[in-house]
């Protein structure tokens, strides 16, 4: 044994030339690879926070919008103008300047009125025709007209919104079966459609103007700036795309800062711990190289993945900075498989599990680079920790140590059991990242108009525009059950057009009602009861005009055409039409109802799945990680006691982190999974890193180096990242606490006390002996 140790030491002090050549070669290969990979395929930086959503649910195609609000600070004094007039003027000016870049967000009010006047009778479903027939009977019509006259003697008739001109027989309620079925036409929601199809908020002085998806943003901003200069308004670009761009700008500013902070913190702490600047520079440099080799192939650098990239870089620094003698293969494998439990998720939010191979590959490369530098590293290592055999056995064997360990474990698990009774799940779409102004804009749109992320789409296909539009009422019909409890409203051309087969059947049915004659009677009744029949001409003329059909062609040529085209797109010679529903909220209990009627798409669907599956996913992840760490520890040490100890420390760390996130009311959702797993894996790894009590300081340093990622995140000031940073830092502190203060006691207790442990110390485990073989003798 001694001779072996001596020869090993001799080799390390004087590394062979072959090793130096291998080191240079591998370093050069890694360097060339990273430069080539980063130059040919630079890492993607994105401001989107929907990377956990299924690709098909992401709102990439949703158009941006212009939010116009009255600037009260400029509309004061003698020059005060009526907000309505300002908004009307601004809307007209923007429409004139934007031209084709603008799209109606709602069916224009005048176009809808004209459409209903002309085609109202056709739009009534056949099931309502018996009731229409009853209302067209002479006695019924006389009673209806008399009731209108009677109601006119009420002071609140007009102010209350009663307007019998367009519907003297109260037929429209038959047309508007459910509130919200005809977009903004039949509902008194937060907003109403203007004459040009913009949305006007009811409660605030603001206007929302839709933009085409391919609108030139620079031109739009230029127009907005010009208009806001001449009128007392503030104009902002809003919508998912605009929000993503704002976040991207912010992210691009923060990335250098966070990288600099992380690397500086790593450099300083490694230099301090190892008392060597060379070590620090080498560790940080090789870490950057390791990450750079795989960054182009990893997930895009967005607000949700940047914390993981930081943690990966910090973990590489920690691996490369530690003295070679103080690590075990088991610990490295645990660290490399930190994110492997993500495989257990049925719903794969983490970008198709790309992290599952990027993380271990980077760690493996870091370990490989470290192996290349083994000789150099160990030649300069300052290891003044005495080996296990030199430690006083009393310290390890004390009863208080074991009792303390058990007590800490029990306390943590008890607190976790009490705290985790109830927690609120926050979906990834709620992740807080961005400027306060951007968040305020998002809230303003949600409050005054609609919640964009709650909009889901149902799609139908066809070969031509007319075909898909003609069929749209049929594809919309089963979806209408969502209106009411699940959805506020539906935006769909299917509410306004009729397919050919339905047109024919309705025409036949309407002919049986003998409408021409009945409308003639109604005209007489109106005159007889003192009404001016011309005042009801929109209804009287429209009801008798059955030669004009509400078909796809007429709809596209009418004032509704521009709005209808918003729902139609062409993909690979297929014409696709969308029906858009605004859900009341993203409640997972809606999912069975929604999926029963169709195949919905939209961020809301992914959000609901994410929230619904959160608890099951969390349980799966934690159990998988516990099993994995226990298994790896057992496989590397062949000691069940050590395996159980590692598992217990991991479980304790995870429980403590969950307690923190719950009590501090952090956003608890799928974005937190990797952070939890990293904390758990670190707890398992640092328990295994050095089984010797006297080498405990390296456990602490390992966590300090990793925690530099958390500290760098904290410094950014972004709420979401601060939560991530705090969780990671806290988890690592708890991990090292468990490794240092709980693991020894538990392991001894499991080993059967002092005597058993003493026996073990005389016959060390394979892993410990392996480590001891590699140890450098104290200098």
């Amino acid at each position, binding site marked *: 044994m001694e001779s072996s140790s001596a020869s090993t030491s001799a080799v390390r002090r004087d590394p062979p030339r072959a090793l130096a050549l291998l080191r240079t070669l591998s370093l050069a290969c890694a360097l060339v690879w990273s430069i080539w990979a980063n130059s040919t395929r630079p890492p993607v930086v994105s401001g989107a926070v929907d990377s956990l959503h299924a690709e098909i649910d992401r709102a990439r195609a949703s158009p941006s919008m212009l939010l116009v609000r009255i600037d009260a600070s400029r509309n004061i004094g003698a020059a005060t103008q*009526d*907000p*309505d007039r300002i908004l009307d003027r601004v809307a007209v000016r923007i429409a004139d300047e934007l031209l084709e870049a603008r799209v109606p967000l709602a069916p224009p009010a005048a176009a809808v009125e004209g459409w209903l006047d002309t085609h109202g009778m056709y739009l009534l479903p056949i099931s309502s025709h018996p009731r229409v027939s009853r209302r067209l009977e002479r006695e019924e019509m006389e*009673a*209806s007209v*008399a*009731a*209108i*006259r*009677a*109601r*006119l*003697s*009420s*002071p*609140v*008739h*007009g*102010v*209350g*919104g*009663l307007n*019998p*001109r367009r519907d003297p027989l109260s037929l429209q309620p038959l047309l508007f079966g459910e509130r919200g079925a005809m977009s903004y036409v039949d509902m*008194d*929601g937060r907003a109403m459609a203007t004459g040009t199809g913009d949305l*006007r908020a*009811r409660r605030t002085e603001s206007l929302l103007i839709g933009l085409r998806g391919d609108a030139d943003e620079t031109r739009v901003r230029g127009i907005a700036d010009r208009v806001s200069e001449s009128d007392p308004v503030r104009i902002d670009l809003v919508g998912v795309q605009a929000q993503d761009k704002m976040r991207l700008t912010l992210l691009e500013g923060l990335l250098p800062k966070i990288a600099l902070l992380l690397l500086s913190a790593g450099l300083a702490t490694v230099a301090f711990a190892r008392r060597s600047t060379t070590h620090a520079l080498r560790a940080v440099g090789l870490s950057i190289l390791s990450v750079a080799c795989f960054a182009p192939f990893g997930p895009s650098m967005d607000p949700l993945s940047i914390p993981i990239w930081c943690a990966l870089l910090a973990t590489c620094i920690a691996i490369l900075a530690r003295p070679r003698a103080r690590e075990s293969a088991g610990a490295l494998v645990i660290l490399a498989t930190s994110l492997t439990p993500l495989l257990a998720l049925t719903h794969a939010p983490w970008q198709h599990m790309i992290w599952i191979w990027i993380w271990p590959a980077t760690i493996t490369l870091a370990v490989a680079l470290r192996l290349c530098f083994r000789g150099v590293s160990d030649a300069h290592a300052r290891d003044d920790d005495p080996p296990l055999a030199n430690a006083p056995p009393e310290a390890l064997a004390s009863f208080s140590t074991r009792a303390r360990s058990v007590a800490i474990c029990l306390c943590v698990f008890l607190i976790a059991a009490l705290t985790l009774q109830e927690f609120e799940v926050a979906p990834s779409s709620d992740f807080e990242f961005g400027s306060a102004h951007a968040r305020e804009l998002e809230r303003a749109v949600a409050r005054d108009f609609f919640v964009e992320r709650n909009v889901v789409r149902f799609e139908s296909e066809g070969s031509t525009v007319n075909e898909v539009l003609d069929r749209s009422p049929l594809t919309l019909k089963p979806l209408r059950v969502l209106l009411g409890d699940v959805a506020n409203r539906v935006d769909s051309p299917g509410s306004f057009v009729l397919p050919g087969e339905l047109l024919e059947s309705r025409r036949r049915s309407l002919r049986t009602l003998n409408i021409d004659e009945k409308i003639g009677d109604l005209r007489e009744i109106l005159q007889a009861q*003192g*009404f*001016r029949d011309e*005042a*009801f001409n929109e209804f009287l003329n429209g009801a008798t005009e059955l030669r004009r059909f509400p078909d796809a062609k007429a709809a596209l040529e009418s004032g509704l055409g521009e709005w209808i085209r918003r729902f139609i797109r062409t993909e690979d010679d297929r014409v696709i039409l969308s029906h858009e529903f605004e859900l009341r909220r993203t409640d997972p209990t809606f999912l069975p109802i929604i999926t029963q009627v169709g195949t919905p798409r939209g961020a809301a669907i992914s959000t609901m799945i994410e929230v619904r599956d959160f608890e099951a996913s969390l349980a799966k992840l934690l159990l998988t990680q516990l099993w994995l760490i226990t298994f790896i520890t057992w496989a590397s040490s062949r000691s069940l006691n050590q395996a159980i100890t590692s598992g217990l420390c991991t479980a304790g760390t995870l429980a403590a982190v969950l307690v923190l996130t719950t009590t501090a009311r952090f956003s608890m959702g799928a974005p937190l999974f990797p952070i939890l797993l990293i904390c758990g894996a670190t707890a398992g790894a640092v328990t295994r890193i050095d089984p010797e009590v006297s080498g405990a300081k390296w456990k602490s340093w390992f966590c300090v180096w990793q925690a530099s990622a958390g500290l760098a995140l904290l410094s950014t000031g972004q709420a979401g990242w601060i939560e991530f940073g705090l969780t990671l830092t806290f988890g690592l502190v708890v991990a090292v606490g468990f490794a240092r203060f709980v693991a020894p006691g538990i392991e001894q207790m499991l080993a059967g006390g002092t005597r058993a442990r003493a026996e073990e110390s005389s016959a060390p485990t394979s892993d410990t002996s392996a480590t001891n073989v590699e140890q450098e003798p104290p200098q």
Partner: protein
Amino acid sequence: MKRREVCRLLMRCSGLAGGALAIFSAPAVGAPATTKLERRLELWRVYARRNQRLVARYRSTRRTSLLKEPLYQSGTLLFEAPGRLVLRDDTIDGSTTYIDESSARIIPNRDGKDHEVVLDAGRDSPALRWILTKTLALFAPGDGSTIENAASLKAPRGRVPTLEILPLKKRDIRVRLRALIVTLDPASGAISSILIQESQGDEFRVELSDHRQDVSAADFQKLMDD
């Protein structure tokens, strides 16, 4: 001689002082507008103070482009503080309107149940909510703050005391309602007429007479049940 000069000087000084007084008191000339409004509100307060239960007769006129001729009705107004108002037309061709703070019900006197309309003054009907609040506040005892709230109050010139209540510049109210004009009795302060000017040009005027204030609860209930 000296005495005359002193007298002249005194006269000049008094003239200057008078001029100064006139100048400094000039802003008071603009005050009558406010004073007039205050006076009229005070007049109304005196009347409304005793309106715990009010019964009055009315004659209503609706001018609308829907009808060839104005629509005249007469009926009984019943008000119980703080927020219950009923306008019951006398004839079978008329209707009965029940008003409270949150809704209005219009029931035609003939076939009422079949053609009853309930207007909910919820969040989405600001114009209706505004008119209901103001109408109830006009009859209820109070200091007038409810009338002034979310409205612009004016006292137009003229011998007949009139209050013009305009909704503030809110599109969702003004899209339906232009103004509410209330005429008071110069002696008693009783509301003699209410004119509702709708945005589309229609007008509804109700002229009140035979005010019976502080009607006993039993009598009031009897009138309500009739």
